[in-house]
């Protein structure tokens, strides 16, 4: 045994051929005693080892489980969406507040109140995601860059022409966001009054909602973040319902106005 000793032989007594009487006596004593004190020490040691191992495994599982839900980086789709959708929603608030000051229609004023409070709250949520993720509100990348990122399924966002906007958005970084009203269109609404203002508002807000839905649908295939996914789902569901409502209101008022840039 001693010839090929290795790390595993540490503390191992070689089996000798010339057994002494002292060794036999000790052996006898060991066999006749119940060894309870020794057993207690061994059990205590094993318990300590088990606790340490369980603690290490628990810690490791906890740490490793975060890998499935990484904190979004500054160039992620989640961060890009959070920044761009704040801009989009803030304009939604602006348009809604403008129409509330320009009409007496309770229907339109209530719709505008709904839109302004909803989008202001959601904009605050998006703001706080970035705060919680430790990311700056401003990006060094152009707006909309996140919509050109490949989806998690691998489809790139660069493909142009047709197809599902959710997976093949036809955007270029720096492009205006879909559905965003131009300064000229906002000036038109600002200058309008009464029923005309209602028609301008409804026309602009339907396009604005369609753009927001496009952005939310672009986020869905690009994230596994639970908060981002439920946010996108909520935007799509609520804004589709509001588009239906606004389309009906617009029909009652003579239909959409033709918008110039």
């Amino acid at each position, binding site marked *: *045994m001693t010839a090929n000793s290795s*790390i*595993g*032989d*540490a*503390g*191992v*007594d070689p*089996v000798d051929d010339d*057994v002494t*009487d002292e*060794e*036999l006596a000790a*052996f*006898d004593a060991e066999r006749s005693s119940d060894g309870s004190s020794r057993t207690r020490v061994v059990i205590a040691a094993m318990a300590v080892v088990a606790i*340490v*191992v369980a603690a*290490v*495994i628990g*810690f*490791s*599982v906890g*740490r*490793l489980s*975060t*890998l499935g839900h990484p904190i979004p*980086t*500054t160039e992620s789709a989640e961060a890009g969406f959070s920044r761009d959708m704040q*801009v989009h929603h*803030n*304009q939604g*608030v*602006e348009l809604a*507040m*403008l129409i509330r000051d320009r009409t007496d229609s309770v229907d339109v004023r209530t719709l505008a109140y709904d839109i302004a409070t909803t989008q*202001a709250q959601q*904009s*605050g949520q998006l*703001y706080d995601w970035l*705060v919680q993720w*430790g*990311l*700056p*509100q*401003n990006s*060094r990348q152009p*707006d909309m860059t996140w919509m050109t990122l490949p989806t998690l399924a691998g489809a790139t966002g660069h493909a142009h022409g047709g197809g599902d906007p959710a997976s093949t958005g036809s955007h270029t970084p720096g492009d205006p966001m879909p559905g965003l009203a131009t300064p000229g269109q906002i000036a038109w609404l600002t200058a309008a009054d009464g029923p005309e203002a209602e028609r301008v508002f409804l026309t602009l807000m339907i396009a604005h909602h369609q753009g927001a839905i496009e952005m939310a649908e672009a986020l869905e295939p690009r994230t596994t973040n639970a908060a981002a996914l439920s946010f996108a789902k909520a935007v799509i569901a609520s804004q589709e319902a509001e588009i239906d409502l606004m389309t009906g209101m617009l029909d009652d008022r003579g239909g959409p106005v033709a918008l110039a840039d």
Partner: protein
Amino acid sequence: MTPASDRPKGTPVPPAVKQQSVKQEREAQRQAKVAAFKQAQKRKNRNKRIGVWAAVVGGVAVIAVLVTSVVLTLPKNATYSGGGTGTGTDIAGVALFENTSEHVEGTVDYPQNPPAGGPHNQYWLNCGIYTEEQVDENAVHSLEHGAIWVTYDPSISDAELTKLKELLPKTYVVLSPQSDLPSPIVLSGWNSQLQVNNASDARIADFFEEFWKSNNVPEPGAACTGAIDGPGKV
């Protein structure tokens, strides 16, 4: 330990045959005990070897799991001090102030030029590009909502102004000319300011990253639209 040696002198020696058989018996007992001892020793050695190897392998595995889980989940180095600290102390030349934020009427004598926070008018200045000088008391209110006020000396070149405009976020920014500036271009946030000599200064982007829509302004997220347009709005 042989009993024979303990026998007192004078005691009759037992017959040889009988003595032989007792001796043999004792020897046989001893041999049995030795065999048992050797077997036990072998077993003990095997168990020890298994124990040592199990401890080594288990210990290495536990340490490996620990190291792996820590290394894989190390926090990534942030490019920005962020998370709402907004101190910007790593940007050279940034000045920080402590201003109050009450609403007042009339003019205010601001300690900074251009003002970077302090008492202000109830009407904030709508964010956007302006070609004329703006009223301090309105612009300061926009800073309170998280906007950055970018002021430039009217003498800077058109090319320089164009370059500056390209650096600006599309919302929550007021751009306006201003005379008597301490440097050709000054960026002011609520309680923060940076003076630069030209639009090529890389600190401009750093300043926007740190202070634009900062979480440290009194009213983050409040609108920068819907109040008043100053003169010369583009």
